[in-house]
C-alpha cells in the first residue's frame, strides 16, 4: 500500500505492576500485551471488547497519555512512543480525544466558550480576534451547539449537549485522528443516535480518521469500517466491518456477536445464542495457551498450551485461532436457527 497509515501500532505492550493485597507478592497486569494494527487516513477503525480487555489503555497509549512498556506507535510516519515535550505537544495537535463521560470530562468551572477555545490558547492559534470568532462560529454550527450556550457552564446542559461540547473541543485543532473512547455509552438511545450521526457527518466533512473504542457492536457496525476484537490484552480478530459481522472467525467474536440482543422480536425469537460459560479470567493471571480456551466451545487439547498468533485468513481478515477459522463461511444469519 502506498498510503502511509495515519496510525501504525506495532507489538504494543503495557504492563502495570500490581500487588496481591496490601503486602502480597508482586505481579504484573498485562493490560495490553502485543497489539498491532494500522489505521488509514479517513478510516474509522473500531476496537471492541468487554470490560477489562485493555481497550481504554490502548487508547491512552496511542495518544501517548500512558508510556508503553514495549512496542511502537507511529503517527503519520513518526514514532511518538519515544517523543517528549515540545515535539509531542506538536503531534498532539493532530490527534484528539473524546471521552465517555461528558459529566466528568468537562471542567465545571469553565464556560462552554472557554472549554472549546482552550486548545487554541494552548497551541497559540488564531490569535486574531475576528479569525477566532469565525472559527468558533463554524465549529459550533458543525457540532450543533447554539451560540447562546457559550457563556454557560457544563452543569446547565444534558448529557447529549455536553458530549457535543466535548466533540467541538476535540475538533477545534482540526486533528487528523480522533480517539473516541465510548463516546455514546453514557447517553440515552435517542440522543445516542444524534451523536452518532454527528460523528459520521463530521468525519466526512473534515476527513477525520477515528479510533473508536467501544463495547457495543451495534454502535460500531453503524459507524466503523474496520473492527478489531480484543480479549484480555490481545487482538483476537481483525476484519472489515461487514466481513466480521457475516463471517466471524474467532470463537470469541462468534459468541460475542450472538450475545448482543437484536432490537427485533421476530429475529430474537429464532436466534440461537452461544452462551459462554464463566467470567472473563482475571488479567492478573491469564490462562496459559490460548487465553480464551477455558470458555471456548471448540477447545482442543492443543489450545491449553499453544498460544496462537493472528493468522491471515483472507486479505485483511485475521484471527488468532486455528481451530475454528476458515471452515465454511458461517454467517451471523446462519446463527439464526430456522
Amino acid at each position, binding site marked *: 500500500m502506498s498510503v502511509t497509515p495515519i496510525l501504525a501500532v506495532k507489538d504494543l505492550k503495557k504492563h502495570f505492576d500490581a500487588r496481591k493485597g496490601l503486602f502480597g507478592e508482586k505481579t504484573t497486569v498485562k493490560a495490553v500485551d502485543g497489539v498491532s494494527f494500522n489505521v488509514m487516513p479517513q478510516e474509522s477503525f473500531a476496537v471492541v471488547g*468487554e*470490560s477489562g480487555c485493555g481497550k481504554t489503555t490502548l487508547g491512552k497509549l496511542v495518544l501517548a497519555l500512558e508510556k508503553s512498556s514495549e512496542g511502537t506507535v507511529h503517527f503519520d510516519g513518526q514514532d511518538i512512543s519515544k517523543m517528549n515535550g515540545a515535539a509531542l505537544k506538536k503531534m498532539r495537535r493532530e490527534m484528539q480525544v473524546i471521552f465517555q463521560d461528558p459529566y466528568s470530562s468537562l471542567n465545571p468551572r469553565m464556560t462552554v466558550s472557554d472549554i472549546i477555545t482552550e486548545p487554541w490558547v494552548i497551541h497559540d492559534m488564531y490569535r486574531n480576534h475576528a479569525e477566532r470568532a469565525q472559527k468558533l462560529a463554524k465549529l459550533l454550527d458543525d457540532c450543533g451547539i447554539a451560540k447562546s450556550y457559550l457563556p454557560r457552564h457544563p452543569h446547565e446542559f*444534558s448529557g*447529549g*449537549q455536553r458530549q457535543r461540547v466535548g466533540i467541538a473541543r476535540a475538533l477545534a485543532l482540526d486533528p487528523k485522528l480522533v480517539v473516541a473512547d465510548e463516546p455514546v455509552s453514557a447517553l*440515552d*438511545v*435517542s*440522543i*445516542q*443516535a*444524534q451523536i*452518532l*450521526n454527528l460523528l*459520521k457527518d463530521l468525519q466526512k466533512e473534515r476527513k477525520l480518521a477515528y479510533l473508536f473504542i467501544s*463495547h457495543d*457492536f*451495534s*454502535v460500531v*457496525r*453503524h459507524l466503523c469500517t474496520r473492527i478489531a476484537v480484543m480479549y484480555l490484552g490481545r487482538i483476537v480478530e481483525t476484519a472489515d*466491518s*461487514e466481513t466480521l*459481522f457475516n463471517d466471524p472467525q474467532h470463537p470469541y467474536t462468534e*459468541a*460475542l*456477536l*450472538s*450475545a*448482543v*440482543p*437484536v*432490537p*427485533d*422480536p*421476530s*429475529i*430474537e425469537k429464532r436466534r440461537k*445464542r452461544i*452462551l*459462554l460459560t*464463566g*467470567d*472473563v479470567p482475571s488479567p492478573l493471571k491469564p490462562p496459559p495457551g490460548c487465553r480464551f480456551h477455558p470458555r471456548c466451545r471448540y477447545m482442543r487439547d492443543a489450545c491449553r498450551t499453544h498460544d496462537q498468533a493472528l493468522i491471515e485468513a483472507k486479505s485483511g481478515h485475521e484471527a488468532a485461532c486455528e481451530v475454528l477459522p476458515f471452515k465454511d463461511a458461517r454467517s*451471523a444469519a446462519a446463527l439464526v436457527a430456522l
Partner: protein
Amino acid sequence: MSEPVLSVRGLRTHFITRERTVVAVDGVSYDLHPGKTLAVVGESGSGKSVHALSILRLLPEPPAKVVGGEILFQGRDLLKMGAEEMRKIRGNRIAMIFQEPMTSLNPVLKVGEQIAEAVVLHQGLSQEKAWAKAVGLLKKVGIPHPEERVNDYPHQYSGGMRQRAMIAIALSCEPDVLIADEPTTALDVTIQAQILELMKDLQREYRMAIVLITHNIGVVAEMADDVVVMYAGRPVESAPIGELFKNPKHPYTKGLLASVPSIYERKERLEAISGQPPDLSGGFTGCPFAPRCPQAMSRCGTDDPPQFHLAGERMSNCWLVEDETKSSSHRHAPSGAIQ
C-alpha cells in the same frame, strides 16, 4: 386469560419540595399476568424506576409521594396497606433486583447470610435450614462451588456473580412477581446473555411474573411479552411485543425504535429524535412529546391527549390514533375504564 397478579391503575408519584413539584410518574396503568414478562421501557428520567419503587413503597416520603392510583396485588391495594403488612409482601411475594449489584448487596455480610436473612424472616426457617437453602439457591442460579462460595463476601464475586446472588435473594421466597430494574445494564454482553437466560429459565420454573425495567430495546425484544413505553412520566404506548415492533402507534415509540442501531443491518443514518427530553417540574400544556414530535399538529401544543384504547389490548397516548380508537380514558382515572 388468567387473572392478573398485579394491576397498576393510574399510578401517580410526585416529588414535592418547597421550591417545586416534579411529576415523576403520571398515570401508569397495566396488568401483569402470571408467568409473563412486561417490559417498561424509557429513557433516563422517564419515570420507569420511580414507578417500580412506588409499587414496593420504597421511595423516601417526603419528598416522594404517591398522589393517586391503585396497585392491586392479587386483588388487594398495596397503597392502602399498613407498613407491617407491606413488609410481609416486599421481598417475599414481590421481590426486586437492581441495576448495580455491588451497591445493593451488603459488603460486610457473607453472601449466604444475605440470602438466608430473607428466608428466616419470611418463611421462619431455622438458621441451619436457611443456610442449606442459600447453598441450594446459589447452585440454582449457576454459581460454581456453591458450598464454598456461600461463605464469600460480595467483593469476592465478579459483576455477573453478584447479579446471580441478587437473583438468588430475590428468588429465595419464590415470589409471585419479580421487579427487575435494569438487571443487566452494568454487565458485559456475554454476561448479560447468561443472566437473561437464567431469568427466563427461573420464570418458567416458578411461573413468576416479571416487570422488566430497561432502556435497552434489544433486551425488550428478547424478554418481553408486553411493553409499556414511558416518556416524561407517562405511559405513551402499551402493546403486546410483536405488535409494538411491527406497528408502533405513538411517534415517540416510532422514533425510539428507529434510533436504535442493530448488529443485523447497517443503516446509513440513524433516525434520531431531535431535541431533548423535557423538564418535569413545569407541568405541561398539551402533549409533552409535542416539541420533539415530527408529526405534531397544532392541537398537540394545547390539548393533552387522553389514553386511547385500541383493538388488540393496545393503548396510545396520541391524538393521531383518535379515529381508530375503541374508547378513551384520562390517565388518572382509577380502575373501571382501563382495560
